[in-house]
């Protein structure tokens, strides 16, 4: 049985990779990909702590529900984020974040 710490380390690694991607890439879509990786790393933590919690628990579903709602909110975030990227591309003809200096079109 794999110890809980290993899952937490993998989640920390994926989170840091996502953070590095979000902070260093120039393409706005790649920044969103980095954010998705960070959200997924958090989900892995939720599921790992749910699995290793003390059972029998009065409400064994809590951690699982948290992860499921987190997945749903992340999906909404992806839809709005990519819609914004498409709008900005139509407006500014670029998705390069280094060339975007102002929010006003």
């Amino acid at each position, binding site marked *: 049985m794999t110890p809980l710490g290993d899952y937490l*380390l993998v989640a920390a690694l994926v989170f840091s990779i996502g953070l590095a991607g979000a902070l260093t*890439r120039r393409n706005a879509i790649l920044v969103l990909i980095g954010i998705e*990786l960070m959200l997924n790393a958090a989900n892995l933590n939720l*599921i790992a702590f749910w699995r290793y919690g003390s059972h029998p628990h009065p409400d*064994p579903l809590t951690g699982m529900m948290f992860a499921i709602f987190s997945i749903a909110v992340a999906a909404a975030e992806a*839809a709005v984020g990519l819609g914004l990227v498409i709008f900005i591309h139509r407006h500014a003809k670029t998705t390069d974040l*280094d060339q975007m200096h102002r929010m006003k079109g």
Partner: protein
Amino acid sequence: MSFVFFLLATLTVAGGLAAVLLKNTVHCALALTVAFAGLAFLFLNLDAQFAGFAQILVYIGAVAILVVFAILLTKGSETPKDGVFSHTWLTGLAIAAAVFAVLGWAVIETAPMLPKSTSVPIVTVAQIGNALMGRYVLPLEIVAVLLTAALIGAVIVAMHEKEGLE
């Protein structure tokens, strides 16, 4: 550390690394799909069947396809001439490395105190359905409203502008 866990962790981390490092944006999206699949298998490895299959459906089925569509609609697959990384990439990398150092240090320091392997929590899909319709019905409704609002908002934002407004 079991062999299966090692394999899945390697797959996930390699997919994530490829997703942020590759030059071609379409390849990045496909590598992201690999990372999502690795995470879904890790969920299954943690006996969270429902979350694992929800991950496959939502992320591999919807989010990855959405990302590919956005890349193709914005001509993002063309590699820019002056590199794919921002000119402040060193700062970003340093921040990410610092975050990983802090997280990794915290995990390793607390590893002996973490709970050891316990009995598998018995959670059936019927129980999840009952809980969603009972105790968690309010969060479920809020998520439903949020998803509807996000869908309408995304369509309105990305919709073509009307002729008169230009």
